[in-house]
């Protein structure tokens, strides 16, 4: 190949939440530079101003319907932190159970429905020998749906579908691309589990319906949870409701242990080259979550808080979201915003943050964004000036490096099964594997929290709400708080300022803002852009490798532009230099 470079635009990036546009510069079959742009904005932070802080969770929950619950949780925590509320133990446990359910459900959906088609060739599955698929399936798991007949029936249905000529969601994709490596039998197993996971995911979320009334978008409450526990009342959480939750949690663990995790371990060995691709920043940040001794006690979290710089696993740095001087700030140097007074550059700590939309990009329709100027609706968050990656990999690495017993054991076990060194984690494959490892932990922890909740109720503590400070008249005239969480996609925090019982300022810094944001004034790339550097591209017209790495982050763009989502739809690819 010559020294020519070409610009690839992938817009829309599909199988994600929201609208994402990726532009990448390719030279000699590898990506040498990349830009990630969010092209949709809604302005939620503006809309929240002046409202009752107790309502904010509902607005925030609508930031994202895929990782539903996570913004409601961060929001109620922010308000509770601001007005000084502590919630009862049963409410904390219910929140933790809902958290675990969300994490597991989201990771399974991501693996099968958003990410698998980057690795699994659906068309190749048509050529599989169902007996071989059965033999492999039974060798990796005791999941009962594994007979030759089962795979034959599925293949038959798939064949009818393909022969119809109407491929629906599978149309016009990259089937047959040389980057697909799985044998047909494993592709057939992958397709079977794609469909089974679709069926399963609607069951596990019933836990959210029990405690929160519905899913997507279950209800939360400042001061606790809205559901009362009363074993003798049909309109409350009673023994039947508990039994349903217990069963669903057990089924979830079975699905993760017998389907998701074995599939991950069966597929990964064919793609070990991706353990050296897509590492990117190699800086990792988490706020931590799953409190076991109250939210204020960070040391008691199941997911630990901390940061790792430059893949240095021997040191975990402390993270303080309240540090307004040298902590977290959001920059607008490459984002379509301005500050009051007209400033268009620089950063602010979120308590002092502003969200004033100021579009300066090309007027649509356009072919290219001018990436030398502002090019995204996402702001650019930095921690002590560093670009940080957030997500399951960050959580697993902080736990692993911090010698957390459970996390370290789970990561070590997975690395052992894949015969891979710890350094394999700093990659596209590592990100995908970390998600599966984490789902195992959350499936297990969900059951533990549930058992603790039952013991608590048995001991007579059924309180789910703290009434003190519910009335705004009990609040100070001015206060501020921060609510942190670990969403499926990574570290999430909401900062709130309350003045005269109303929201004075509300700022969200969400996982995909960390990962998908534009570069900063110093030219430091954020995680997506950095991870694409060096990624091989076999055929610029078939951007399979790009979406593999981007999907390994599980993009969620409505979140990233809380305000926004970007539109990405057309994809053009042009040779800029021949």
């Amino acid at each position, binding site marked *: 190949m010559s020294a020519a470079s070409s610009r690839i635009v992938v*817009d829309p990036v*599909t199988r994600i939440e929201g609208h994402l546009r990726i532009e990448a510069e390719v030279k000699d079959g590898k990506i040498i530079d990349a830009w990630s742009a969010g092209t949709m904005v809604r302005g939620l932070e503006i809309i929240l101003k002046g409202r009752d802080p*107790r309502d904010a969770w*509902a607005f925030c929950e609508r930031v994202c319907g895929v990782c539903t619950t996570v913004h409601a949780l961060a929001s109620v925590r922010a308000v509770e932190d601001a007005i000084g509320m502590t919630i009862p133990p049963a409410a904390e446990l219910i929140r933790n159970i809902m958290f675990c359910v969300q994490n597991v459900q989201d990771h399974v959906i991501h693996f099968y*429905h958003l990410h698998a088609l980057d690795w699994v060739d659906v068309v190749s599955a048509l*050529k599989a020998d169902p007996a071989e698929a059965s033999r492999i399936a039974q060798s990796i798991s005791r999941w009962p749906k594994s007979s030759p007949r089962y795979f034959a029936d599925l293949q038959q249905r798939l064949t009818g579908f393909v022969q119809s000529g109407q491929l629906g969601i599978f149309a016009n994709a990259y089937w047959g691309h040389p980057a697909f490596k799985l044998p047909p039998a494993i592709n057939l197993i992958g397709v079977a589990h794609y469909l089974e996971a679709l069926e399963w*995911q609607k069951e596990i979320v019933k836990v959210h319906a029990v405690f929160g009334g519905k899913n997507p978008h279950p209800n939360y409450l400042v001061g606790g949870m809205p559901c009362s526990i009363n074993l003798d009342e049909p309109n409350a959480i009673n023994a039947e409701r508990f039994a349903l939750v217990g069963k669903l949690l057990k089924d979830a663990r079975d699905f993760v242990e017998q389907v998701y995790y074995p599939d991950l371990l069966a597929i990964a060995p064919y793609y070990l080259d991706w353990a050296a691709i897509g590492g990117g920043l190699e800086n990792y940040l988490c706020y931590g979550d799953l409190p076991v001794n109250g939210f204020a006690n960070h040391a008691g979290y199941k997911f630990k808080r901390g940061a790792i710089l430059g893949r240095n696993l021997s040191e975990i740095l402390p993270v303080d979201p309240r540090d307004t001087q040298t902590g977290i700030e959001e920059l607008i140097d490459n984002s379509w915003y301005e500050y009051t007074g007209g400033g268009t550059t620089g950063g602010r700590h979120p308590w002092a943050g502003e969200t004033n939309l100021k579009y300066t990009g090309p007027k649509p329709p356009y072919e290219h964004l001018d990436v030398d100027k502002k090019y995204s609706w996402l702001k650019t968050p930095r921690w002590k000036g560093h670009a940080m990656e957030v997500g399951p990999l960050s959580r697993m690495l902080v736990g692993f490096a911090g010698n957390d017993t459970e996390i370290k054991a789970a990561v070590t076990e997975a690395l052992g099964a894949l015969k891979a060194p710890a350094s394999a984690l700093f990659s596209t494959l590592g990100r995908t594997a970390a998600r599966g490892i984490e789902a195992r932990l959350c499936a297990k922890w969900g059951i533990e929290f549930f058992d603790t909740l039952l013991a608590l109720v048995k001991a007579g503590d059924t309180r789910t709400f703290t009434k003190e400070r519910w009335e705004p008249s009990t609040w100070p005239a001015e206060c501020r708080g921060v609510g942190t969480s670990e969403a499926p996609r990574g570290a999430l925090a909401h900062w709130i300022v309350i003045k005269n019982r109303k929201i004075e300022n509300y700022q969200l810094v969400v996982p995909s803002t960390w990962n998908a944001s534009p570069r900063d004034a110093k030219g430091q790339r954020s995680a997506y852009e950095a991870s694409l550097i060096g990624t091989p591209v076999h055929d610029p017209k078939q951007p399979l490798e790009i979406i593999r790495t981007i999907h390994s982050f599980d993009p969620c763009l409505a979140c990233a532009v809380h305000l926004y*989502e970007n539109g990405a739809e057309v*994809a053009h690819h042009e040779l800029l230099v021949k």
Partner: protein
Amino acid sequence: MTMLAPRTEVAPTIYEQALSRGVSRRDFLTFCAWMGAYLGLEHGAAAQIARALESKRRIPVVWLHFQECTCCSESFLRSSHPIVADILLDKVSLDYTETLQAAAGHQAEEILRDTITKHRGEYLMLVEGSVPLAADGCYCVVGGRSALDTVREVAAGAKAIIAWGNCACSGCVQAANPNPTRATPINAIIKDKPIVNVQGCPPIAEVMAGVLVHLLTFDRIPQLDALGRPKAFYARRVHDTCVRRANYDAGLFVGTFDDENAKKGYCLYKVGCRGPTTYNSCASMRWNNGTSFPIQSGHPCIGCSEANFWDNGPFYQRLPNFPGFGIESTADQIGLGIAGATVAGALAHAVLTNVRKRGEIGPHPGEDAEKAEAAEKGGAA
């Protein structure tokens, strides 16, 4: 590189195409048997393949996303009857959906273009999200084009439009005051096509699937109310079939969350419930295959299937002067009665409750049925 199965030229099924090329029925079946053998399928496969090839084409569907949070797509995935795998494999040809489709970028765009050209007048357009009209549409750009451009172009060739959720029906959260991007629902932009508004944030999964199945099975638009919502799912207030309704009629209210009355499952009206003014199937169908719905799980309805519900707050403030507390009391009068009863003790409470229930739930044998019914109608006003 295999670019699987070029999209067919729409009209003919594969069987029809074969016939037009002079292939006989016998040859066609032989081909199916051979195909089955080639694919290593068991004996019955040939007949199945034949059926699939002969069958009516699945209706092409395009699912667009604009200013939204994808909760409608997620809700759709939760459908229990029919399940989504069956919808995708057997009922529709979901040609374009950014959430699930395998292709991305250029390949995804190509599918959209092909579908709206080759299936002009035949495809269903499903929309999730609102369209921002401010600032030349720069607040939502997909593939370099504004949402407004895309929605107009795709709507022009659509057979019908389904507007999923509160965003597409009435703008939802981004249209809440001050609506910084001028988020606008589909029915305010497209005026010349049938539009079904499937309300809610999100709509209930089985309502979404139900509307789609209605269109596909009966090949016509379901009956709609004045706001364009299918009557089958939006004709009744949540309040009408609420599991806590009897408590409302009896004047038994939750005072604050998790208080003694909350633990007894009393009515949530006084902590802000919008059930009395919200039209939806939550209380009858419930969510997640009948598991629960917000009020059952202790939180007041926030009215998410109504336009502008975000600005009809704060959520925990009760609806002002909602009429129709059974006979003629207001919530405050009833509340006072309850408070008095609590002070007076459990026995008095029980007596009072029974008296009220007897008087207010409705006609009892030998009582004045007409009066009770009139009062109830007053309540529904």
